[in-house]
């Protein structure tokens, strides 16, 4: 087996991710408290501690390809408990955004997020029925959660038509300017 150093490019990217997340992965001494408290760790390929370890070792690609970053529910337990003050949740966010930039998403969570934000961009508000429909069509599962549709309507919990705000133009411009300045 031949051992090679992590390439400079990967190290640059990790530094950018740390800056974006406002945290430093080298503070981590691998105690594992984040993984122990993570309520979603049972479903992850790399628990939070291992994601940090990958980044410490300069292995950014497997971190970006990990299922874990899309299973993270952003509940902030890891960041709250870290004895070294590493903001792991914020790092997960930064990894998701970078994976999205590189087109390496899990398809499901990213599709939901896109459906959600496109409704906000259009109406200025969330439109639950529209988000679900769009998500289901994009992920090829048209009848997912359909059993909840009618009961929700009966309870006045979902409207057929979206609620729109008046200054939708302002919202559209916020999306455009954020994108111009380096977002998605």
């Amino acid at each position: 087996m031949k051992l090679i150093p992590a390439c400079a490019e990967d190290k640059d990217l990790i530094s950018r991710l740390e800056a974006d997340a406002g945290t430093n992965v080298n503070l981590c001494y691998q105690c594992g408290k984040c993984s122990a408290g993570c309520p979603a760790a049972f479903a992850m390929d790399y628990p939070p501690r291992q994601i940090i370890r990958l980044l410490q070792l300069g292995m950014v690609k497997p971190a970006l390809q990990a299922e874990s970053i899309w299973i993270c529910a952003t509940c902030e337990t890891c960041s709250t408990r870290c004895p070294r003050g590493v903001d792991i949740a914020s790092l997960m966010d930064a990894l998701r955004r970078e994976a999205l930039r590189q087109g390496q998403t899990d398809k499901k969570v990213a599709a939901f997020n896109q459906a959600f934000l496109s409704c906000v961009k259009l109406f200025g508000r969330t439109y639950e029925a529209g988000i679900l429909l769009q998500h289901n069509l994009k992920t090829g599962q048209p009848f997912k959660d359909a059993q909840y549709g009618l009961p929700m309507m009966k309870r006045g919990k979902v409207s057929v038509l979206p609620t729109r705000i008046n200054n939708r133009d302002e919202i559209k411009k916020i999306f455009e300017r954020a994108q111009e300045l380096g977002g998605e």
Partner: protein
Amino acid sequence: MKLAYYPGCSLEGSGIEYGMSMERTAEILGIELIELDDWNCCGATSGHSTDKLLSLALPARNLAIAEEIGLPMLAPCAACYSRHRATEHTVKHDEKMRETIAHVIDKDIKGTSETLSILDVLANHIGVDKIAEKVTKPLLGMKAVCYYGCLLVRPEEYTGFDDPEDPQTMDVVLKALGAEALDWAYKTECCGASLLTSRPEVGNTMLYEVLRNAREVGAECIVTACPLCGMNLDMRQGAAEKVGNTKFGLPVYYITELLALAAGESRQAVGIDRHFVEAGSYLDDVEKRAAEIKAELEAKAQAKEAAASVEKDIDPEARQKKVDAMIKAFEKNPDKMAKRLIDDEERAAVLLEIISGDSKKAVRLAELMVDNSEKASKAADAFVTAELKKRDK
């Protein structure tokens, strides 16, 4: 109290009963809510998972509107609260980012706003004493767990009004309503709501664990202050039951629903009929229990009062007669009286000497024997102890 109000999308949709009961709660507690004009969605989890700047700009537009109103802003939804607090934190501590955000929203934003959660408002701004004053139908006998979820108390640097591991604000409010708030381990565990559309197999397992722990500690219902937790625990409880092949049947209430009900509001007005897990019959049970507990407490109080009044109502003349008779008994048979007061023969003999030589002490003991024989024995014993000490010297 006057507050700017940001209901958020959920309180008009999937969390409609939270919105309804929030308005009732405000009215009951005399809080005037001024809804932000033309507010927009905060972007929630999808926002910060996708675009950092956008995730700050969407709440910032609302905060700019709130700054114009010049009042603290109540955001009942935990996700909205979290996003607005995070944005406030950035605007206050990162001048460069504040300028960028102001450019993106094309509005001035100074960082003067303050977003509040409903738990902070109830426990810290209104206070449990004032809440307790409004309770006309206490929820006596209700056994509940308070579920805070993830975003109300985390991260501490943005939120900071309660402990991130063992928060208490909802517990104290619930107790003020008369209910029992049980201790449990999943107070701030994530229910997985953000994953339920995209990764239901993961989300349902997380949800199952929360429900399981609630049942394990003996909870009969769950109380929440987040519309995402609320919908998840309520609407998807059936799906979570399938994970463990079990039946929970735990009704899920918003803290505002319970507050309004305890203050006498009708169930319909707070949306109890809009729940997925049937939530009315447990309230019937609680009403029955409350009536029983109230009756029991009243009976106890009455018995206590009656006992007190018997003592008070003793006719002073009749008492004096008894005391006189007792004094006579002391004069006639001091040895017998001494033995009645003290079992120990030697000490009784000492007492006999004391009462024979000091009529004041004999009268005092006679009075005490009429009023309270136990006290009389104690006093007699004390006389003997003092006398023996004196003799030792």
